[in-house]
């Protein structure tokens, strides 16, 4: 019969997203930097190539931010009207943007010079984007119900799609086929155009099924087979391969969803809405795995391709950039600096000893070669004695007071502390553990009690312990201001809790009456 370590009780929790690995990951995007613009931020776009600068469009300007410093590096202010949809080309050298006058301009990102002017829309252009596969093409969608594909060198529209009957407010060129264009319009339809035929090949939503709310945003998976469109607060998933079937409709936002974005691997979908929330969906289940709150309604949202920055533009003109410190293992993912390349030895000979990161130790092969033996060899497992936790060790030596001290430290979770207190009660040792403490030793006991006396998980036990402590230490009250203040805090907290419980009882009574009335009416 061996010593049995203290059994730490686990308490059931409501399935909160607080502590899932997913939410831990998204919580790493910390330290939001707020940049105040003059007008609502209408668009944020990250450059697909390193160093992933991002273009922020607000008022009549397109600003290029450096992600590392989060400062403006370039400001392009060549528009007369409100600029929209600043978009950086895949090579990171050109920027295209439209404005409310219908003008679309292509800039050089470094010199900020206007390279091309695409001017045939007569109404505001809300979308101006480079095609991902054909870098010389630009898609523009306008409030004049048309969408056009432009050839940048010749400044001419190659195709014009006119099937929409209302503002076209969102659009995207497919990332698998440069001829396919997905657009969403205020006529509540999402359409798939083919530049080869010049016609609308697929209509999703509209009167046929999507309701009649205007389509705010569309987004196509990198595979090009599934599209996501937001109509009002509802998010719909359309299967393009199946001929434009709606496979799922999600309504997790309270207000209109205005921004959609994929993370780097398109395994998570981020949606931002006017309800000031950004929600993260797992695209395999379309369940919300994390929610982020923002101070104002969100108009646009982007996540950098290396998943280190989340930029969100809000209606009050604030740009919020959240940033995550990538792990060293992630940064080592750069193919040029991969371990294999380093291991070959060529790298060092090219760069000499000047390369700074070569001494990181990541060069060494991680997997040690294991000695291989006979297949049928019987291996004697080495039994390692289980190490006891320090409080268990003290408990084993019947040092109850020290064991209690060991679990009252800050970094010990309260479940452990109260499980140990329970064990002390079983051993009839709680009084022994609590007696003979001076103010320094009593302080952690009282702090834990103050913290958890109202916690439903430990309420009974904390109350019992508190009663014992009060019984034992009432005679010495008034000798230490620290202890006195802690006792007062304990009392205050208990009083507040009692008041709260009373409120709850009142509410319960009221609810009971309402339910009873409803039941009698229904009956």
């Amino acid at each position, binding site marked *: *019969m*061996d*010593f*049995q370590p203290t*059994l730490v*009780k686990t308490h059931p929790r409501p399935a909160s997203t607080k502590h899932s690995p997913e939410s831990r990951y998204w919580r790493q995007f910390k330290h939001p930097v707020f940049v105040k613009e003059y007008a609502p931020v209408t668009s944020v776009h990250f450059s697909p190539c390193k160093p992933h600068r991002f273009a922020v469009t607000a008022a009549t300007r397109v600003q290029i931010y450096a992600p590392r410093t989060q400062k403006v590096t370039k400001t392009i202010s060549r528009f007369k009207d409100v600029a929209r949809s600043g978009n950086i080309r895949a090579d990171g050298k050109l920027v295209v943007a439209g404005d409310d006058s219908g003008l679309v301009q292509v800039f050089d990102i470094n010199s900020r010079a206007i390279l091309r002017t695409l001017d045939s829309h007569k109404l505001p252009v809300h979308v101006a984007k480079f095609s991902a596969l054909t870098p010389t093409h630009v898609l523009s969608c306008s409030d004049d119900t048309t969408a056009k594909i432009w050839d940048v060198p010749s400044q001419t529209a190659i195709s014009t799609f006119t099937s929409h009957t209302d503002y076209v407010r969102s659009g995207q060129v497919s990332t698998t086929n440069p001829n396919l264009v997905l657009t969403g319009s205020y006529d509540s339809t999402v359409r798939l155009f083919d530049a080869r035929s010049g016609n609308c090949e697929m209509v999703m939503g509209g009167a046929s099924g999507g309701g009649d709310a205007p389509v705010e945003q569309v987004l196509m998976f990198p595979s090009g087979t599934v599209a996501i469109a937001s109509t009002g607060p509802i998010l719909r998933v359309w299967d393009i391969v199946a001929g434009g079937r709606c496979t799922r409709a999600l309504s997790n936002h309270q207000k209109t969803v205005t921004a959609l974005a994929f993370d780097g691997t398109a395994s998570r979908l981020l949606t931002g809405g006017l309800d000031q929330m950004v929600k993260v969906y797992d695209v395999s289940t379309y369940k919300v795995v994390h929610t982020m709150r923002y101070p104002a309604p969100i108009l646009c949202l982007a996540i950098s391709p290396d998943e280190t920055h989340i930029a969100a533009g809000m209606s009050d003109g604030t740009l919020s950039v959240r940033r995550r410190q990538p792990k060293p293992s992630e940064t080592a993912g750069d193919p040029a600096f991969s371990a294999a390349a380093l291991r070959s030895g060529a790298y060092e000979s090219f760069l000499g000893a000047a390369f700074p990161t070569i001494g990181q130790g990541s060069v060494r092969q991680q997997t040690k070669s294991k000695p291989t033996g006979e297949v049928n060899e019987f291996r004697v497992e080495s039994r390692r004695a289980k190490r006891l936790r320090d409080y268990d060790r003290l*408990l084993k030596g*019947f040092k109850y007071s020290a064991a209690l001290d060991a679990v009252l430290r800050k970094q010990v979770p309260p479940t452990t502390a109260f499980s140990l207190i*329970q*064990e002390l*009660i*079983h*051993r*009839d*040792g*709680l009084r*022994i553990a609590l007696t003979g403490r001076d103010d320094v030793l009593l302080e952690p006991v009282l702090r834990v009690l103050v913290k958890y006396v109202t916690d439903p998980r430990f309420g*009974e*036990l904390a109350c*019992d312990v508190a*009663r*014992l402590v009060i*019984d034992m230490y009432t005679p010495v009250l008034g000798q230490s201001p620290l202890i006195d203040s802690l006792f007062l805090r304990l009392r205050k907290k208990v009083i507040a809790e009692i008041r709260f419980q009373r409120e709850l009882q009142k509410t319960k009574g009221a609810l009971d009456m309402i339910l009873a009335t409803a039941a009698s009416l229904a009956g």
Partner: protein
Amino acid sequence: MAASGVRQAHEIPLPQSPAQPKAHKSASSRKAKGKAKEQSAAAPKRRVPPPAAQPSSSPSWDWASLTDSLVSSVPPIFTKDGSHFFSLVGSSVRIYAATTGKVVSTLSIPRPAGYDDASDTVTCAVLNPHNAFQLITGSSAGSLAVWDFLEATLLQIIDISQPIHHICAHENFKDSVFVSVSRPGKKGGGEHGIVLQVSLKPAEVASQSTAQKSSQITPVGKMRQPVGLTFSPNGAWLVGISGHKAYVASSAALSSGFTKYVSPERLTCLAFHPTEEYFATGDEKGCIRLWYCLNDEQVHKPVGVEKKSQTAIMHWHAHAVSSVAFTPNGAYLLSGGEESVLVIWQLHTGKREFVPRVGSPIKTISVCTMTGGEEEYLLGLADATYTFIGAASLKISRSYSRLKLDPTAIHNAPSTSRNSQTPLSVHTLTSTLILPSSHPSSLQIYSPISSTLISELEVSPSNRVSRRDEKPLEPCRVEQAILSPSGDWLATIDAREGDEDLHGESYLKIWWWDRKAGFWILNTRVDRPHGLQKVTDVAFSPGSEGHPLFLATAGGDGNAKTWRLHVAKDAEDFWVARSSFNFQNEIPSHVSWSPDGSLLAVTLPHRTVLFDPSTNLVRHTLASPECGDFKASHFIGKAGRYLAVAGPVDLVLWDLVDQRVRWHHKSPGPIRALVSHPREDTFAVVSSVGERVKSRIALFSVNSVKAIKALTVPLNFRNVAWYPLVPSTFSLVAITHDWRLVVLGDNVSVAKDDGAVSRAMMTDSAPQRRTLFQDIFGKSAFGEQPSGSRSDLPASTARPWTGHDASQVFDKAAYQMPPLEDLFDSLMAGFLKPREIEVLPESLETEDVEMADDSEPALLASAGGSRQVDEAEMGAMVDLFKSHTLKAKATQPVPSRKNGVTNGAANGKTPHSHSTPVRQNQIAVKKDVLVPAVADTPSIPMVNGKKRKKSMG
């Protein structure tokens, strides 16, 4: 002790033994003196003859005790070779094999008919110092018995008519033992003990009767309530302890009586140092005292004066020391007590080592030296477990546990005021019983068919620390253990009572039966299923199709709850609360399910409410105002048409279809339990009758208010359950108030424990030890014993000829045939079956005999066999060794083996077929008493005698 007390109160129509009141008195007064560890052994619970002849209306019903679980507080005694040990349990002596822990034999005194053995307990035993194969036992009924334990025969009984407490013997006192007996005091409460020297020679007048009188009884000295009596190893001193005093008498001058030495605390145990002249005692406060008072000038002072003596004190124990023992080399002292820690004191330095957490409070310690030379400590624990601890490693090497029901042995302050429930259920998948264990926080699983303890299930794992102060620790108690009908789930309720400062705890735990591993695995734990109130009842639904498996609980908070199995897709299944409902805030006392699971009957004090378990809607409310508070309600019959509701004394049977009372019965005593037949329309009502220890079990049918059968038994039950393991129309299993497990019902027959009968030890004690020759030459040289070979021979000769295919060779012309040398072996193989080599040891001499003869087939195969050693060769070797090595000691080679019974010839009752060899130096002493029947046993081979001599000597 309460058990024996209450047993005497009931009226068994048997004549009272004359020794009985005396014994009872002595026992109770000992209890009054606070010697708690004696209680369990002194309380005899064995009942040999089930009272089939009970005067009752139903002779076909019967009851039998399944097992008795007793703890001995007398240290086990080892045989000289350490291969077996004797444990005194109740009225019998059990002989355990030290290596396997099995009971190989049980010595019980044959009782004359009509003898109530309830008060007769074997209290002490000692090996005969002159014959290592004889055991002398003393019983509380006042009889000394001499046993030959090898043959399990009772050689002699000497009745001294006074309760014997301790016995000791020494070589210096041939044919006599020293016993401490008690006789009732003149002034009621007090009790005088006395130490007697009892001669084992029978008085002439009584020599022919079974219970003989001793020829000579010499009183040595008085001693009040002795708790220990022993000789010093050299036989110079006789020491006893009792109360606060140690009594010392010089064996050279026994007539001068005892010299008393005073200890400040009450002494509890005694041990003598093996080589030096001092002894150790343990006392109630946990001190171990070494007494250096054994010198002549100290003792030869006037008798009767209480003196102080030079002592050394060793203190570690916080509670009473229950046993002390010296190691044979005298370097270490072992002590143990309630702390469950074996303390090993190095006497020279006073340093100590510990073997902590042996599992249960230590009751006895004895030291065993196996012939292999390895020393082991045997701890007898309070939970009826024997644990061996290797002296070298100080680790528990093995431990043997037996069924143990009584928790009071460990927690000697039982909470009698609290009417705690006792878990009991029958697991039909494995045909095992789930019973409470010695520690209230665990259950034990017992197979009644093989009468073995399968395993122990720790429901609420805890560190079994001992109490700090006098107040006992309050453990978590398992209150209920309910099995699902399929046997896959077990629900247990374990609770710990709170006190004025701290709230209690209660847990509902649901265990899953792992069919592969054959054990219960904790699946779900629910903390405080009914808040701070206790859970009054638990029941599984039948779980038929259409009605999934539910669990219903009723609690003191007025709620009844149902729980369901949550089937998770990728995780383990677990139980979750499904619904909670109450009825006018009355506290439910019992829940039960209809056989198809469509109704849930919740018993409230004044009514029984039938719920639909799927919707929680009230279907019916049954009330019967004249009945008093309802306690339980059970569905009766396969269809569950009837509902039997039990009140304090009333029994009401409702017909649920007619919705009316079918009949109403008033029981003669308070109803304790109600068990319904799972298939038929009958049920049994257990009620207590009259005085405290009598119960009436009545079998009712739904058709009539008159009981079909009734049986009155002198037992009170803690819990009763349906017992499906015997083929019987109606049978129950129950735990009685004195912690016995009994079976009641039609044709109950109980398999006795293995080894519960007395039998000769050597015939079946399996591990034959290696002989000296085997040690020298290796075991393989001697092969197997040739005993089995004879039976093989006829089988092989009768074998039909199978050489037909080989005979085709002869069809050819002679010159075409292969040479005969090549042909012979393969041809003969067809005729003869090769035999196993080792079956023919006598082939040694006949090895080079001509092999042509077909009629001697056995000779063929042994040609290639290894060399075998037969008995003749062995004999030659024995002679050789004797003549060369043992010349100095060699007396005549034992021509006549006699049993070592001194009065064997005179005692007509003694069987004479003993083959017990006696050590050779003893032969010379007793040569004059030859038993005429020795000639009957010449067939014992010489080798065996040698072996045994070595092993036992």
